[in-house]
């Protein structure tokens, strides 16, 4: 596959969205070929703004990226009614063409540099702007043709309703692509996407509407003035992403202290966290829970540092239940001392507990993440980073023998699926 395209199989969701957007853009271009371009300066100004916004994208902690400024600019272009006192004339097709060209231009440098781009996300953005424009612009033309200025509260309310509806639809589509890509349940993905809407999503929507409303009197100045809060938010988001990345790398690096100290096998923590995340994703953990699981998995052996002598090979699975519990407790104490990672500490604390005890129902007080770590940790102690299918199968068989109390059967089944298709290499 070419470098500019995603280096994994394209899911149906991505294909459908990309094709839909392409069709909409082609139809719009066809329409514009037979009609005059109106208000070219406006198109240039907004197009330039959108392209710059696309260029100034923010990398998100989950590996994707956001383009708040480009989205807000495109939204505003779709929603501008009166501009500097005069009603605008351009139609929805023009909005679609300008947006599509500007967004593509803005991502060209990334393509050229071989950086990852997300064509499906771009397609979705164009699609959403197209819907907003297709609904709002005829409405505005109707108002202005009727000759009466609509009541001052009507346009903003109409804009807000349209934008919120479209944002909801966007979340549905985004969740569809995400669940297909990560093999996570649809509802989990939707929960994450809706959560994201309330953060920067609100700011994007509000800024878009604001620019459109304010441009009645402020003209093109509305664009830079009202972009300022969004630019500031974007800076914070970027710094947030950097520090989150650093946090992840630091924990990854420091989790290796147990390896350097000879307490665990090289790469053990990393493999447990990678496998654990894959399992957690399939079992429907939200992105926040996954982040917690990842950190807990990386640090799950930190309690071993308090042992006078390392356990041979670092395999806690071989230690007695009491010992395992003491290590988990000690590790949780260390993590709890950070004062910031309480949830992670709880996960680590419960990792040595069986998911149920003889004669009792399943212990619901043990976090799913802890149960996952327990299973995956045992698997890695048995199989290590081995790629031999025989050793992997042996390990899974051993886990299955202990499913009555120690290892949650749902997780073991899920792990079996994940291991079956994974090629986790020995890091």
């Amino acid at each position, binding site marked *: 596959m070419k470098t500019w395209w995603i280096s994994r199989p394209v899911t149906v969701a991505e294909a459908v969205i990309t094709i839909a957007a392409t069709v909409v853009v082609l139809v719009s271009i066809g329409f514009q070929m037979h009609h005059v371009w109106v208000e070219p300066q406006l198109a240039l100004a907004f197009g330039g703004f959108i392209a710059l916004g696309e260029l100034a994208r923010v990398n998100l902690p989950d590996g994707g990226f956001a383009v708040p400024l480009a989205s807000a600019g495109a939204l505003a272009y779709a929603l501008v009614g009166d501009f500097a006192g005069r009603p605008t004339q351009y139609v929805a097709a023009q909005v679609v063409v300008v947006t599509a060209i500007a967004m593509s231009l803005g991502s060209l440098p990334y393509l050229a540099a071989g950086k990852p781009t997300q064509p499906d996300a771009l397609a979705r953005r164009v699609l959403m702007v197209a819907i907003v424009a297709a609904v709002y612009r005829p409405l505005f033309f109707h108002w202005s043709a009727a000759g009466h200025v609509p009541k001052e509260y009507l346009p903003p309310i109409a804009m807000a309703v349209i934008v919120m509806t479209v944002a909801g639809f966007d979340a549905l589509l985004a969740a569809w692509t995400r669940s297909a890509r990560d093999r996570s349940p649809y509802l989990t993905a939707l929960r994450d996407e809706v959560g994201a809407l309330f953060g920067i999503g609100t700011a994007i929507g509000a800024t878009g509407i604001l620019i459109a*409303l304010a441009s009645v009197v402020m003209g093109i100045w509305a664009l830079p*003035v009202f972009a300022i809060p969004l630019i500031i938010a974007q800076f914070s988001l970027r710094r*947030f992403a950097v*520090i989150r990345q650093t946090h992840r790398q630091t924990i990854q690096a*420091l989790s290796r202290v147990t390896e350097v100290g000879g307490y665990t096998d090289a790469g053990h923590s990393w493999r447990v966290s990678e496998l654990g995340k894959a399992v957690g994703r399939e079992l429907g953990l939200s992105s926040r829970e996954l982040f917690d699981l990842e950190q807990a998995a990386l640090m799950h052996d930190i309690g071993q*540092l308090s042992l006078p002598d390392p356990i041979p090979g670092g395999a806690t699975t071989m230690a007695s239940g009491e010992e395992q519990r003491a290590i988990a407790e000690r590790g949780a104490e260390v993590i709890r001392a950070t004062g910031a990672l309480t949830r992670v500490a709880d996960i680590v604390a419960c990792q040595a507990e069986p998911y149920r005890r003889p004669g009792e129902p399943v212990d619901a007080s043990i976090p799913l993440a802890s149960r996952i770590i327990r299973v995956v940790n045992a698997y890695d102690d048995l199989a290590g980073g081995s790629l031999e299918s025989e050793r992997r199968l042996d390990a899974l068989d051993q886990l299955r023998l202990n499913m009555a109390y120690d290892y949650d059967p749902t997780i073991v089944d899920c792990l079996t699926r994940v291991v079956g298709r994974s090629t986790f290499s020995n890091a």
Partner: protein
Amino acid sequence: MPTWPRGARAYVALLAAVAIGVELLSLLVVTGLVTFSDPMWAAAVPPRATTLEALVVLAPVCVLTSFKRSRLRIPVGLSLNAPILLASYLIAGPFVAALIGSVDLLTRMRAPLIKRAFNAAQFILMAFAGGVVYIALGGVLADSFTSHDFAGSVLAPMALSSLVAMVVNALLIIGIMRWAEHVSALSVWRTVFSGSLLPYLAYGLLGLLMAVLWSVGSPLAAILVVIPILVARWAYQQYAEQLNAYEATIRSLVKAVETKDAYTRGHSERVSRASVLIARHRGMTEDRVALLGYAGILHDVGKLGVPTRVLQKTGPLTDREYALVQRHPGIGQELIREIAFLREAYEGILHHHERLDGRGYPDGLRAEQIPEFARIIAVADAFDSMTSTRSYRGARTVDEALAELDRHGGSQFDRAMVDALVAALVTHPWTHTAAPAGVESTVADASGAGFVLDHDDPTVGMSVAINQQRAEDAIAAQPVDEPQGRAS
């Protein structure tokens, strides 16, 4: 709930009484029961429709921004209520603004009554004072904004009135801090005003923008302005929280590592602190200071790769053991290599045992070849080691330690860094946060009757530096495959 001193209670009661008076007056004026004959003040009371619109639209926003404030954990000097209240009196005059200020009472129901009373009084008085000054200086309400003489009828009165509101706010806060916390007025004044001029300016502009949007017939647009700003603050808060979590995580993980080596408890933190002192004194940029702080904390993380029995060995180390100890900077650097953010910190960690005369380890770098971070950490490291108690000697005083550093300046340490430390300690007295009671005895237990030599102690290090070559020979002759400490 902590009981508030009587002075504070009386102060808040007084403020509340004044605020209630203002509210009553405002109610009378707004309902038309009291009218002004003076045209200037008559103009300060907007038509009934505008009053209603302002109350319906702005009051909920004020509630929203109040809620937001209570959830902020980082100290953000200013509440977002300030621009809303500014916009309120620009749009509807001081009386309506005072009424809007009172909605703060509806928020944070769980907070102690005295706190809520103070906050509400604060907003009411701020809005009212600002509004009265605005009108008195000839300011006009949003419905009468004109481009003709905008500066004289809006900008100038707005700037001065918001300044007055700011001062009123500061005075009220000084009062409560004075009575409730016994903080001196001057230090409160400094905290309230330090670095907040720019936000004040930005918030002033924001309030003005809202009023202008309102004046051109977009009240909803005026409200929408707040949302991106709230989100920007939220994003900043996310960042700040993540940063806090990050720093806490590094600290506690390092503490976990330190449990292996009873000596160094708290050592990493203190080395970080001393390094930062040196760097700040030398005028290093804050970005690099932060990095150096991390490097200081992490500088000994590689000790984990040194067998515990070597770290806790009593008596002098053999050449081979010393060679093992000497591996720790390399192991530490290896560990944190993957943390992209800490680039410059790697070198600081790798080379913190180099000496200016080239007799240090691991690479025997000389003078300027040694990275700046490493030269700073080396000084901080030795300084903390000497001012800490060791089983083979007591803690030295700060002055003795500095004298010792000075003696080794030029040969072992960079004199510039030593001088910086000496100068920095004049203004920042060194408090040695001693290890908690009991730790010292643990050390004694671990080391039995003998003593453990501290590899950071320059007076110990002297004799070892001479052994450098022998140590290397020993390593070469007897390769250590497993520095992991499994060997019993």
